[in-house]
């Protein structure tokens, strides 16, 4: 059950380690995406973030995203690590690595994964800014929503 490719953790994320879980001698391209905590959001001066997850379902959502990507890009290896707990400015909240013999597929699958994480992963961020705090609320998590999935694919082609 504990696949090193899909993790929710309170430890700092390591791009090289995430990439290593999907690298092999026949892969020519590795594309990674790293989401970092910014010092500004919607005009607010951000102090730090707190990420919360429904951990077992979050890991399952990553596996689901990998399966969706695998239907479209069978040659791609995908890994997703998401951090939880308190994160300071500049720290990585999410790391995605996509490997493939060819670069086009690696880029596409990496982009697809971040779009889908934002749509369906049961993870929430609590923004602490100068003057207050706010729960950021984005998408209603519905993995069966085909329109959302099509929108995610549309970003990748």
């Amino acid at each position: 059950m504990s696949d090193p490719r899909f993790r929710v953790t309170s430890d700092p994320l390591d791009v090289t380690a995430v990439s290593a879980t999907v690298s092999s001698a026949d892969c020519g391209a590795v594309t990674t995406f790293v989401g970092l905590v910014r010092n500004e959001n919607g005009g607010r001066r951000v102090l730090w973030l707190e990420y919360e997850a429904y951990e077992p379902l979050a890991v399952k959502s990553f596996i689901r995203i990998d399966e969706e990507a695998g239907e479209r890009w069978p040659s791609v290896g995908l890994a997703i690590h998401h951090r939880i707990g308190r994160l300071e400015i500049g720290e990585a909240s999410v790391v995605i690595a996509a490997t493939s013999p060819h670069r086009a597929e690696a880029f596409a699958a990496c982009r697809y994964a971040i779009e889908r994480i934002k749509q369906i992963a049961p993870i929430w961020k609590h923004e602490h800014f100068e003057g207050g705090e706010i729960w950021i609320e984005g998408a209603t998590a519905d993995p069966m929503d085909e329109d959302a999935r099509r929108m995610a694919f549309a970003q990748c082609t």
Partner: protein
Amino acid sequence: MHVTIRLFARLREMAGASEVQRTLADGSSVRTAWESLVGEFPGFDDYSRAVSCAVNEEYARMTTPLSDGDEVAFLPPVSGGSLEREKGKGKR
């Protein structure tokens, strides 16, 4: 039947608990569990249209039937990933 309800993020804060127990009538669905919370916690009803749910760590529907011992989770709109391109859709 007896179910455990997991709450996250702002729902957790409004309820003041990350987990609550409920005894529901036989034949209850996820919706029954949600409505029991809406009746108790002001603010929950604001989420009735946007909330999603899981049963026993799998995504579910409001119509999913419940059994004794189930773990139900209510998920406010999610915001994983990173802050880039967010447009401040959050609620205070």
